[in-house]
C-alpha cells in the first residue's frame, strides 16, 4: 500500500524527494510547495487528519531547522510524514497550514513557542506554553536544559517574593538511562554522581 503511494507521489510531484524513515512513508517537500502539496494530500490522497506539527534543530548544520508534519488517513488507515527545511537559519519560516487543517493552529503555536519557527499566515501566532514576554525558544539546541536567568512578568508578585527564573541545579544531570540491558542496571542516572552519598558503597 505505502509502496504504491510512495511511487505515485514521487512520480507526480517532481519537487518531492524520498526521506529516510524507519516506519512510515516519508517525503521531503520544499517550503514553497508545502501548501500546494498538503492541499492535494488532503483532498486527493485522503489524508484527512493532521496529527502532529513539530520541528528539528540540527544545531550547527545548514539548513538548521526542519519542520515535520505527520498526517493520517482515516480512510486508508496509513500515515505519511512530510518534512520541510527552513531556508533561513536565523529567522526560520514555514507556511502555516491552519487554512487547510484547523488542528495546525495550536501545534504551530507550540512549535513557534519552543523552537522559534515562524509560521507565515497563522491567524494568532503567539506563545502557548511559556509566557508572552519570555525571550527564548527553550527546545533549541543552544538553550541549556537548566534554563537561563530571566525576570518574570508579574511586577507585583516579583515585588513581594523577589522571584525570577533561575537556572535549575542540574547535579551532574540530565538523568538519562545508559541504554540497553536489564532495567535494574540501566536506571537513569547523572554523568557526575559525586554528590551521591551512596556512590562509595
Amino acid at each position, binding site marked *: 500500500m505505502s509502496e504504491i503511494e510512495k511511487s505515485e507521489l514521487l512520480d507526480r510531484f517532481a519537487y518531492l524527494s524520498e526521506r529516510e524513515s524507519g516506519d512510515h512513508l516519508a517525503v521531503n517537500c520544499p517550503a514553497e510547495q508545502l501548501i500546494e502539496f498538503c492541499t492535494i494530500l488532503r483532498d486527493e490522497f485522503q489524508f484527512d487528519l493532521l496529527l502532529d506539527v513539530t520541528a528539528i534543530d540540527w544545531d550547527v548544520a545548514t539548513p538548521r531547522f526542519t519542520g515535520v508534519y505527520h498526517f493520517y488517513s482515516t480512510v486508508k488507515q496509513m500515515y505519511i510524514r512530510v518534512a520541510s527545511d527552513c531556508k533561513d537559519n536565523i529567522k526560520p519560516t514555514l507556511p502555516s497550514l491552519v487554512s487547510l487543517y484547523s488542528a495546525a493552529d495550536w501545534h504551530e503555536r507550540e512549535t513557534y513557542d519552543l523552537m522559534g519557527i515562524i509560521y507565515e499566515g497563522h491567524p494568532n501566532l503567539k506563545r502557548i*506554553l*511559556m*509566557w508572552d514576554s519570555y525571550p*527564548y525558544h*527553550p527546545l533549541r539546541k543552544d*538553550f*541549556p*536544559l*537548566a*534554563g*537561563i*536567568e530571566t525576570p*518574570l*512578568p*508579574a511586577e507585583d*508578585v516579583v515585588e*513581594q*517574593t*523577589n*522571584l*525570577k*527564573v*533561575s*537556572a*535549575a*541545579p*542540574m*547535579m551532574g*544531570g*540530565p*538523568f538519562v538511562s545508559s541504554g540497553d540491558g536489564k532495567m535494574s542496571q540501566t536506571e537513569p542516572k547523572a554523568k557526575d554522581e559525586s554528590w551521591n552519598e551512596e556512590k562509595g558503597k
Partner: protein
Amino acid sequence: MNKQTVAYDSKVEGEVIVTRADAVINWIRKNSVWPMPMGLACCAIELMAAGGSRFDISRFGMEVMRFSPRQADCMIVAGTVTYKMAEVVRRIYEQMGDPKWVVAMGACASSGGMYRSYATLQGVDRVVPVDVYVSGCPPRPEALLDAMIKLQEKIKDENSVKNLLTKHPINKIRKDAVS
C-alpha cells in the same frame, strides 16, 4: 468519676472552663482547618483519595475542601509548579484570609522534584511560606494525613493572640535563589 480529667472538672468548675486564650483559639483553629486543593499534577489524585471514604480526611476535622481561596485557610500545593503558574499560586495565596497555612505536597511542590528544567519552579517555598513539606512522588494519602496532623500540632503551639496584632511571624518565604 473519671480521675483522668485534667483540663476540666465539672465538680470543681461547674459550667465554667478556665484556660488560656491561645489554647482555645488554637484548639478551634486546629480542628477546623479548611483546605484549598491547589491541584496541579498527579499529587492531586492522591489528595482526592485522602478526601475519599477509604482514607477519610474528615476524621481529623478538615474535610471541608473549598475551591475558593476566600473560604479556605490551608493551601495544599499538590503538584508541579511552573514559573508561569508561580504567579497564580502567589495571587491565590494572597486572597486567603489570615491566619493561613501552606502544605507543599510531594517532591515537585517541595523542591521541583524530577523536573530540573527551565520551566519548573524549584520549590514552592520561593513564592509562598510553606509550613509542612511532604515527601513522595506522589505521597500516599496516609503521608498527606500525617502532614495535616503535623500541621495541626504546629497550629496548636502558635502564639495566636500575639499574632492577632502583629504580622504572622512564620509568613516568610525562601529568598536564597540557588543556581
